[in-house]
């Protein structure tokens, strides 16, 4: 009995201590102590866990790298495919917008019949401002038919084969068009230049021409229908010694960006050269 009492006392003390500690812990009085005790343990645990994960990844790495490389190649291939698709779709959007504006133009000018054609080549000589289109006599194209875009006059068909046609641009040095200035009703002749610009000639000295005047086809001469926009007057040169004024014109069409054009198929140019008197004729 005697020997049991110290043990009972010990148990009782431990119980008291345990209850005291629980009480202190519940009351939050042990938090600083537990922090001091737990922090080194947590640090050690973290350090060991990280090293273990590093060693584990080192052991399993070759397998992962192969998988990742395969996934990477597959993703890269898909990315390339999607990029190509984006470029194609962007191109289609641009083409659709262009065609839509051409259709709008066609609807606004119902008096004419049109055929659309793509510009597929340019003349190989820098002396010639011509383009080649992908429609020819099989599509009903004939020499002399006017070629336009929604912006304005491009030129006329100079030669035709079964599947293609050559178009002389209005900025070719050999091109000559009778025009009228919309604001002032002044008639003139529009000539192309080797520089790619277009110039108004044969403007009467009495005529009043202003920068910004709209230049349109007059229809005289029978080569082009009337009232097709060509461009705007930029500068006027009026020399006292010359018989006529000249003016440079900003074309409405950007000839370096020609992609799709419209050909007016119900207009046939008239050759009036036999009617022009020559010095040898009686």
């Amino acid at each position: 009995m005697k020997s049991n009492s110290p043990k009972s006392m010990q148990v009782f003390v431990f119980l008291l201590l345990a209850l005291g500690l629980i009480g202190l812990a519940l009351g939050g009085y042990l938090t600083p102590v537990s922090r001091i005790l737990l922090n080194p343990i947590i640090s050690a645990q973290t350090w060991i866990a990280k090293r273990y994960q590093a060693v584990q990844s080192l052991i399993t790495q070759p397998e992962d790298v192969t998988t990742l490389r395969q996934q990477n190649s597959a993703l890269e291939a898909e990315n390339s495919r999607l990029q190509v698709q984006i470029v194609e779709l962007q191109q289609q959007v641009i083409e659709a917008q262009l065609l839509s504006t051409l259709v709008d133009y066609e609807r606004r000018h119902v008096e004419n019949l049109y055929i659309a054609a793509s510009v597929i080549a340019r003349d190989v000589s820098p002396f010639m401002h011509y383009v080649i289109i992908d429609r020819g006599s099989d599509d009903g194209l004939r020499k002399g038919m006017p070629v336009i875009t929604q912006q304005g006059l491009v030129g006329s068909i100079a030669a035709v084969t079964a599947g293609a046609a050559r178009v002389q641009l209005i900025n070719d040095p050999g091109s000559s068009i009778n025009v009228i200035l919309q604001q002032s009703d002044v008639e003139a002749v529009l000539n192309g230049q080797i520089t790619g610009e277009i110039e108004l000639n044969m403007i009467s000295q009495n005529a009043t021409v202003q920068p910004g005047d709209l230049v349109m086809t007059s229809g005289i001469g029978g080569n082009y229908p009337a009232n097709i926009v060509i461009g705007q007057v930029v500068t006027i040169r009026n020399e006292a010694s010359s018989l006529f004024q000249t003016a440079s014109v900003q074309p409405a069409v950007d000839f370096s960006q020609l992609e799709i054009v419209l050909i007016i198929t119900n207009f046939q140019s008239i050759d009036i050269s036999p009617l022009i008197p020559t010095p040898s004729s009686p």
Partner: protein
Amino acid sequence: MINLIGIILFGILTIFQSTIVSTMPLLKGTADLILLFIVAWALQDRVDTAWQWCLIGGIFASLYSALPFGSFIVAYIICVGIARLLKRRIWKAPFLAMLAAIFISTLVIQLISLIARLIMGVSLPLTNILNLILLPSVLLNLILAIPVFSIMHDMADWLYPEKLDV
């Protein structure tokens, strides 16, 4: 066989010239791929088809140009003649011969084009032609001359292998 290769080569070159090179002018001048390849071919040793290739190139160029048919053929024939002459004179320095031949040939081509346009009834201002077409074209052709010569040198080695003396 060699002429068939020439037809395919100049067909492709003409398409490149009309769709890509002609849309990339320096001022208003453009490089002339057909001229470069014809002259480079004419300057190669052992090559005996220079005149045939010149004719093929001239026909292709004429098909893609509004200049009177034959203008390019005549121009390229003169250029091959010049190249052959230079090859005999400057045979020790083929690159120099190529540069000299391209310089002179570009002038010849532009002169014949100018004459052709004059015959067509279109007079052109010479100063503009010199500044905007002639000088830029010469520059572009000279830049491309050496790479084209190297390509044609390899092609000549392939089509005309050197005979070994046993």
